[in-house]
């Protein structure tokens, strides 16, 4: 019987291949949506893991998380410098690290922060001890292709600064972070004081253009302050876009979050914000899933149509089989087995294709965002494929039943 099926498939090899590809692409689409969505969820959750509590100026929670955790460039309202000082002196806080952005170099974001935070992210190689001990130092993320000793001249986002070349801070790469599988792998970390200095200058130059004396004075003052970097902070701290807080205990985390949810400040658990984001993402997934199911239904309809046409073409052949004494069950089996073979092959190819597609997409996204997307094939995916196969088997039974019920005498007369 299987010989008969294979002989017929060989005879219609091209058509069978087209059907297999059709089913494979429809399956792959559904598969890729599942795998990619899960990878995105897991990947971003893991990326947010290291960030317990983020404090920023009142505004959008999502934007605060996207900017601080995922380093997505967006202008954030600055938080009063006092908040940073208060937080870092709070006994419930292990460390409070400012994150200052706005500059970039070769497309890598330059993030101003403190040595504590750099240590907390983990260093893979270091030249200086401790990191970010002086203003001209930079620690690069694992994914930044700059070697130690490389000189970084930040590109300022603010206008007018390019002209003042003598003001520009030059950083030298002195160390590299261990891989974190987060967007921070693409960041260049510098002392927050450097970012403040650059931006103060920008503001000065902008506000008081031509007053060179003031500039010089300001420069001098900052350098004096820069003799010692990081906390404890002086009284007149400039503003920061966001503060990453590492509370000592979970209870502290909740207390702090409550305390810093005020009129002017915002405190969020990135994990919580992400969960809310996922529910939005979940809707998107549902839409994508619906599209994938629609595609699968279309493919199923096309396959059914082809199967019926093929059956009509084989009507006499199947009638003859019956005339030679083949039982009706065997006729059902031949038609069903042939369809199942094609559909099964298509679904199997689709699973592999979907997995490969998701993997390629994830690699592309990782390169862009730095977020490592864990693409995995799980039991539930195979379950999904099994459900597809079961539905296909049920649909394939329709032409098989049609063949089963067909009168051989009528078929041979036609």
């Amino acid at each position, binding site marked *: *019987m299987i010989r008969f099926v294979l002989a017929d498939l060989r005879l219609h090899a091209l058509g069978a291949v087209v059907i297999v590809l059709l089913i494979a692409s429809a399956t792959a689409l559904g598969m890729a949506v599942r795998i990619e969505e899960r990878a995105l969820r897991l990947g971003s959750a893991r990326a947010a893991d290291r960030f317990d509590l983020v404090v920023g100026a009142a505004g959008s929670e999502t934007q605060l998380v996207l900017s601080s955790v995922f380093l997505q460039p967006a202008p954030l309202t600055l938080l009063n410098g006092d908040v940073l000082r208060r937080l870092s002196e709070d006994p419930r806080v292990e460390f409070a690290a400012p994150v200052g952005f706005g500059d970039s170099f070769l497309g890598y974001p330059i993030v101003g922060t403190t040595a504590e935070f750099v240590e907390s992210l983990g260093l893979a190689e270091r030249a200086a001890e401790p990191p970010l001990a002086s203003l001209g130092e930079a620690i690069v993320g694992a994914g930044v292709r700059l070697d130690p000793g490389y000189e970084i001249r930040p590109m300022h986002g603010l206008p007018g600064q390019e002209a003042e070349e003598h003001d520009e801070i030059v950083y030298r790469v002195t160390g590299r972070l261990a891989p974190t599988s987060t967007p921070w792998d693409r960041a260049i970390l510098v002392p927050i004081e450097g970012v403040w200095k650059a931006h103060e200058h920008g503001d000065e130059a902008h506000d008081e253009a031509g007053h060179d004396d003031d500039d010089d004075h300001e420069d001098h003052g900052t350098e004096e302050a820069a003799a010692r970097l990081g906390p404890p902070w002086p009284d007149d701290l400039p503003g920061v876009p966001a503060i990453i807080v590492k509370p000592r205990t979970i209870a502290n985390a909740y207390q702090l979050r409550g305390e810093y949810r005020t009129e002017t400040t915002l405190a969020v658990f990135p994990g919580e914000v992400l969960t809310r984001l996922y529910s939005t993402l979940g809707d998107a997934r549902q839409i994508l899933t619906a599209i994938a199911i629609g595609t699968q239904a279309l493919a199923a309809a096309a396959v059914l149509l082809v199967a019926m046409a093929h059956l009509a073409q084989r009507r006499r052949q199947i009638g003859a089989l019956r*005339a030679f004494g*083949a*039982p009706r069950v065997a006729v059902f089996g031949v038609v069903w087995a042939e369809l199942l073979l094609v559909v099964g092959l298509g679904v199997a190819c689709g699973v592999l294709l979907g997995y490969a597609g998701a993997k390629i997409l994830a690699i592309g996204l990782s390169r862009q965002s730095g977020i490592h997307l864990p693409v995995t094939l799980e039991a539930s995916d195979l379950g999904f494929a099994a459900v597809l196969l079961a539905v296909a088997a049920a649909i394939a039974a329709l032409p098989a039943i049609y063949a089963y019920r067909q009168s051989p005498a009528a078929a041979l007369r036609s």
Partner: protein
Amino acid sequence: MLSLSLEGVVVRFPDLAEPALDLPGLEVAAGSSVAVTGPSGAGKSTFINVVTGLERPSAGRVLWSGEDIARLSEAARDRWRARNVGLVMQDFHLFPGLSAIENVLLPARFRHIRLPAGLRDRAAALLVEVGIDAGARGIETFSRGEMQRVAIARALLLQPGVIVADEPTASLDGQSGAAVCALLTRLARAAGATLIVVTHDPALYGRLDRRIALAGGRRADALHAEAS
């Protein structure tokens, strides 16, 4: 070897006023050979369908050596046909993509999960007997005469008690037709099988013991009385 006895067989189709077949009585002795002739629409195909159990008559009994196949279920008739009937058809119904020997074995493959011992040898021997060298090439490369000879080998495979041939020479040229005629009658006789052949071919029905002429679904030959 099977004998056939039709008793009061009537076949009606829903959209026809006249019955397609109306045979009050007909006997075919076991091991004899009969030609069934008649113009198009005479009921020849219906006759074949009824005696092979492909179709159930609206009324009457179809007795093969005393067993009424008209009373059998569809599945039982399939089984009976597989066991007792060797079928040869006008357009062969060989299956492309399969070799000659696989075509000969095909009906057996649908009946057995594993082929009974010796069946493959028998198929090879039958192919030699009908003059086909059993190669692996697909059946679609054969000439029409060769195809019909493969079909005859297939009909003989399971040593049927009756061989039913429907216009076996109609789609062949004279020479191949003559070869098929000779082969069919010789092998049926050698196997001791009853042979029923629907044919227009005088060369073929001349070789057979008897001729039954049909017209409008009824006996049209002078031998009508002999049926008793």
